[in-house]
């Protein structure tokens, strides 16, 4: 593509003369455009090919994600084409990345079918990510207008109702993923569920790749898991749950598994992100109709969410999933084994939980977003966390979160129940200290050591994992540092 500096939007017959025009000339660059309240706005990080200027690359992205094709077509003139064209209206430099810039692109509401994440995404991320004029492209954030949000049902249960159903308030929920992921028979698998729930966890979980393999048929797993869940509920007088993964090859099969879970009295089922946006939305509608909490495992997301220059930022996935309607979604641990810069993760959590998220560049939130009464989606922190980090987990992740200690429960030297108890005691002690006004973050290890005096399992957990941390630099970080403001 030629360098496009100075080229302006063409109008009338000149605009529709057969041939190839620059995207700017076609009207996809509108620096004076003021987005409407009903527009969908996208923020892309664009790395143009050498020789393509910022405005033209932004216009090209706007064009290729809306009405443009590579050459002029006269049939545009049969439409109110100005309306359907996405409009790139602003480009900003990216701090410390001279080859990249941020482009703001506005899309008219009528470009999208109501209630359809597949339709929204087919436009926004459909073709444009393979477009040759850009070397790399990343969808960093989206402002979804209230008018469009109102066409989505959102989470079937939501954090508030989930807590009321479970009768658990004022603390994070505790969970664990059954390990080993693969190979356990149904009967052995249910043993892990029973032990962990009886020991004090609220939830146990199937892993993302547990479906119906030769070593364990799904019905066998469901039956034994529910034996474990019910026995643990009787042993504790608490509501307990196991995320029964209903992910399968077809919708028909998923519905069959979900129905079976319901008939067995499970409070929660689970799906994987890899089933796709349509299937997720369908399962959300099913869950809403059947009083079921819906857990989503973000299997596969790091293939496109992790690298900073290309793909989709996970905060956008959080937005889409809150719209499509899941009750739980894995959103990072900060301190665990998986990717997660603290400020970026804070942005994910706020996106899932807040009724309104103000623009906050230091958390990666580029827009004010009103959530139009869509319910709150519970973030799940899973992967390489243990009881000794309880103060940090509560500090970074707050109260509305499921803390999942898989290895940190099942790997306990005294057994699974002891591991679960260690986690529960650590959590309760930390919440109590926080509520009492203690500086629990600074005094965390002290608070845990004190609680461990009357709880041997906690002492053994602290001894076992005392030095385990995962200190690697994050790949996906925010671009803007918080500005220091003078103390008042």
């Amino acid at each position, binding site marked *: 593509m030629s360098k496009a500096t100075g080229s302006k939007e063409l109008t009338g017959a000149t605009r529709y003369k057969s041939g190839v025009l620059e995207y700017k000339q076609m009207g996809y660059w509108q620096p004076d455009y003021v987005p409407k309240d009903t527009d969908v706005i996208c923020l892309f990080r664009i790395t143009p090919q050498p020789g393509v200027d910022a405005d033209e690359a932004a216009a090209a992205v706007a064009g290729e994600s809306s009405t443009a094709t590579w050459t002029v077509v006269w049939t545009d003139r049969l439409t109110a084409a100005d309306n359907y064209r996405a409009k790139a209206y602003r480009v900003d430099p990216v701090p410390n990345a001279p080859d990249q810039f941020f482009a703001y692109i506005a899309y008219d509401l009528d470009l999208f079918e109501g209630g359809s994440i597949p339709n929204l995404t087919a436009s926004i991320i459909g073709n444009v990510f393979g477009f040759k004029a850009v070397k790399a492209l990343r969808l960093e954030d989206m402002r979804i207008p209230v008018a469009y949000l109102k066409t989505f049902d959102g989470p079937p249960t939501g954090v*508030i109702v989930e*807590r*009321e159903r479970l*009768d658990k*308030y*004022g*603390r994070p929920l505790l969970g664990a993923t059954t390990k080993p992921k693969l190979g356990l028979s149904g009967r052995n698998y249910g043993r892990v569920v029973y032990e962990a729930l*009886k*020991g*004090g966890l609220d939830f146990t979980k199937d892993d993302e790749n547990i479906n119906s393999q030769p070593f364990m048929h799904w*019905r066998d797993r469901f*039956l034994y898991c*529910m*034996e474990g869940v*019910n*026995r643990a*509920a*009787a*042993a*504790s*007088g*608490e*509501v307990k749950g196991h995320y029964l993964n209903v992910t399968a090859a077809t919708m028909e099969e998923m519905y069959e598994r979900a129905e079976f879970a319901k*008939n*067995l*009295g499970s409070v929660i089922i689970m799906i994987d992100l890899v089933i796709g946006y349509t299937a997720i939305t369908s399962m959300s509608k099913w869950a809403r109709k059947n009083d079921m909490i819906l857990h989503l495992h973000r299997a596969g997301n790091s293939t496109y969410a992790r690298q900073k220059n290309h793909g989709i930022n996970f905060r956008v996935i959080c937005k889409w999933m809150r719209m499509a309607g899941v009750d739980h979604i894995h959103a990072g641990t900060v301190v665990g084994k998986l990717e997660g810069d603290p400020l970026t993760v804070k942005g994910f959590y706020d996106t899932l939980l807040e*009724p309104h998220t103000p623009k906050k560049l230091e958390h990666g939130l580029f827009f004010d977003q009103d959530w139009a009464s869509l319910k*709150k989606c519970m973030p799940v922190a899973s992967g390489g966390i243990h009881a000794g980090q309880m103060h940090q987990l509560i500090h970074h992740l707050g109260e509305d979160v499921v803390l999942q200690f898989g290895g940190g429960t099942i790997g306990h030297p*005294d*057994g699974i*129940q*002891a591991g679960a*108890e260690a986690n*529960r*005691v650590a959590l*309760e*002690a930390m*919440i*109590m200290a926080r*509520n*009492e*006004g203690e500086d629990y973050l600074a005094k965390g290890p002290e608070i845990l050591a004190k*609680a461990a005096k*009357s*709880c041997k*399992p906690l002492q053994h957990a602290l001894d076992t994992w005392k030095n385990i941390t995962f200190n690697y630099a994050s790949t996906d970080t925010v671009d803007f540092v918080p500005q220091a403001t003078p103390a008042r």
Partner: protein
Amino acid sequence: MHENPRNMTQGQFSFLPPLTDDQIKKQITYAISKGWAVSVEYTDDPHPRNSYWEMWCQPMFDTKDAAAVFMEVQECRKVYGNLYIKVNAFDNTRWRESLAMSFIVNRPKVEPGFGLARTEAEGRTIRYRISSYATDKPTGKRY
């Protein structure tokens, strides 16, 4: 064999040693500092899905004094000292309008726990029924 500290572990702090009066007051102080309304409830039916424990009083929306709130706990204990009593904090702000805290402050001397009854159904399905051993007796004679 590993044993849980208790066989009824509802609420925020059931895995910790029983709360002292001072600890209870501190939690109440925290709730009031957040603008939440504290209430006291008791029951002789601690089934995990019993959503409606008896209300000792209405949520204390206007009481900002932790000592006054704690007095209600004490009064409730005097009357129902051998039942389960919990303290709740209700947050009426938009987007929550639900409980923000809930913890047990009193237990019966003897806690028989819960039984699990199984009924074999179609296929290998089992229908489960959880019930407190205490609720086999009529209310008033349970604890």
